[in-house]
């Protein structure tokens, strides 16, 4: 059995959620069957301009075939088209024009899939909203498996996607909430699907003291790791945290890890450490009292899973259904919808070491039961075996 993973970008230096997810799954599935990756030559996700050379290369033992992007995205035109389809009456043609501008527009990739469909048993498409998934699934619906990585994004309501969700042979969902959302939108209950998600690479050793010494962090701290931007709810986190400090006089600090596009508030208890290595990140996570996830949109928060893998509790934004659902299913974290709930939940977490430990243990058990690589690989194999048996 040979499978092809199709994703918008691919490379060791690409850390985007779906792209990293795809690379990890491909690298793990390689131990079970021959795997190839079909992708574009793009690196920049704003313009999809060709960056890598067209052709084949080996990345961590996987053959990667790159196809050129015929037309880079014009952000202005894309914004205009998106505005039209989201805010005005429009036709299906407008949605397809938007999709073409969304990119990465690579007709050669689609042509390759159509021409070589006999060489692969299954095509696993990542990210529903891009050109490669839409036209790729149209080219080989009978062999396609879709990993939608969908969030509560307004474009998911477009008609072209409602139709698309009824086409693949199977779905690999990231969370139960994602499955419910896609099924309620497209009524595609007849398409088989499993909630799988993704495993995570937890280093064999990690040390909170090493992190504290290296970065000069003392006392209890909350941690946020990830992109620091508006969409991730970081302004709310800053606001809530500073207000919490003023109202309660707590000595807790906030440690921020990741690249930022926002101005970090100048406060002695807010420590921004920039982009850290994986080792430093896990060291930091292991020493944190709580991981705070203020994001409004997540299809699967890898950082949350990493915190649970280390036995740390989570305080998540309840407006993100996926995070709230994971907290409830795992009993591994609390959540908040507004500042008052943030304050009460954080006060409770900081005041009870036993509660933090109990939530962390539950989170770890949830991670071990659902998100270790053995389980993830087994689920992917099960989907393909079930499809093979149904043929």
């Amino acid at each position, binding site marked *: 059995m040979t499978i092809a993973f199709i994703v918008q970008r691919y490379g060791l230096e690409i850390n985007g959620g779906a792209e990293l997810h795809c690379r990890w799954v491909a690298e793990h599935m390689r131990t079970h069957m021959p795997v190839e990756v079909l992708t574009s030559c793009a690196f920049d996700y704003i313009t999809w301009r060709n960056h890598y050379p067209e052709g084949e290369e080996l990345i961590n033992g996987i053959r990667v075939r790159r196809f050129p992007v015929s037309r880079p995205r014009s952000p202005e035109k894309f914004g205009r088209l998106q505005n039209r389809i989201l805010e005005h009456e429009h036709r299906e043609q407008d949605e397809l024009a938007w999709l073409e501008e969304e990119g990465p527009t690579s007709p050669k990739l689609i042509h390759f899939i159509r021409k070589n469909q006999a060489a692969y048993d299954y095509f696993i498409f990542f990210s529903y909203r891009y050109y490669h998934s839409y036209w790729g699934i149209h080219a080989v619906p009978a062999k396609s498996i879709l990993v939608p990585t969908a969030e509560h994004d307004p474009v998911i309501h477009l008609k072209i996607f409602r139709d698309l969700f009824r086409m693949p042979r199977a779905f690999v969902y990231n969370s139960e909430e994602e499955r419910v959302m896609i099924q309620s939108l497209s009524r595609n209950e007849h398409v088989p699907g499993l909630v799988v998600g993704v495993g995570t690479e937890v280093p064999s050793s990690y040390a909170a003291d090493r992190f504290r010494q290296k970065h000069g962090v003392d006392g209890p701290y909350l941690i946020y790791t990830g992109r620091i931007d508006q969409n991730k709810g970081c*302004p709310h986190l*800053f*606001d809530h945290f*500073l*207000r919490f400090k*003023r*109202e*309660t*006089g*707590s*000595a*807790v600090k906030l440690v921020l890890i990741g690249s930022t596009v926002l101005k970090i*508030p100048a406060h002695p208890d807010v420590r921004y450490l920039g982009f850290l290595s994986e080792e430093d990140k896990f060291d930091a996570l292991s020493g944190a009292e709580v991981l705070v996830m203020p994001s409004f949109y997540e299809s699967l928060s890898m950082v949350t899973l990493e915190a649970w893998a280390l036995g740390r509790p989570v305080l998540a934004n309840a407006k993100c259904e996926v995070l709230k659902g994971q*907290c*409830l299913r*795992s*009993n*591994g*974290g*609390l*959540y908040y919808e*507004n500042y*008052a*709930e943030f*304050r*009460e*939940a954080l*006060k*409770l977490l*900081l*005041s*009870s070491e*036993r*509660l933090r430990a*109990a*939530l962390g243990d*539950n989170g770890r058990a949830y991670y071990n039961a659902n998100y270790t690589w053995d389980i993830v690989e087994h689920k992917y194999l099960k989907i393909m075996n079930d499809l093979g048996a149904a043929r």
Partner: protein
Amino acid sequence: MDSPKPIGATQAASVEIDYDRVNVAEIMARIQKAAAEAPAELSAANEPREAATSSFSPASASPRTAPPAPPPTDWNPEPQGAKQTIKKILRKLMRPFFPVIRLLALPIHEELRATIKSLHETNVRLDNLYRLLQMQSVEFDRKIDLAGERMDLGDLRLDHLEGRLKDLDKSMEYIRLLHNLDHNLVLELTKLKVEADTLKSKVRILEKDQELTLRRERALEEQALK
């Protein structure tokens, strides 16, 4: 069951937790209850501070440094007491310069007149546009009525067509019955023909039997006479 112990200045809401079987939904229900009750307790202590520091956005950062706005007062345009006297003196002193001031204010006056004229013309244009809009609205209503009439006519035609369709359905039913009748008639006629053929065969056999009997009779008579 155990209650969390507060550490330092952080006072947690009194939430009882079964640490052996932590249930996040239950804890959250209690937290939400505590959060809903808390604003009343906190508002008195935090209100002045909250107003200045509740948001991190730059737009809301400015109130942190700005002094609180004074309470609204009634504005009195007329100066009172000493102010009125000073105003009178100033007016007396400036009286010789009034023609010069008027001369200086002439271009502004002209400009004001031009602006007023322009505003008047704009008003006239607006009135004309409003009249035009009303006329078009009337025309639009008329067209809507016409379209409504056409729709009524279309409905009538549709009713007529539906009546014809019902007739057609009835005719089709009659034709189906006639077909059945034809079929049954053909069947019965075929049966009768088969029966007639059988009877004819029987008659032929009986004739042959009779002929044989006659021949035997004749032969027996000849033998008897001999």
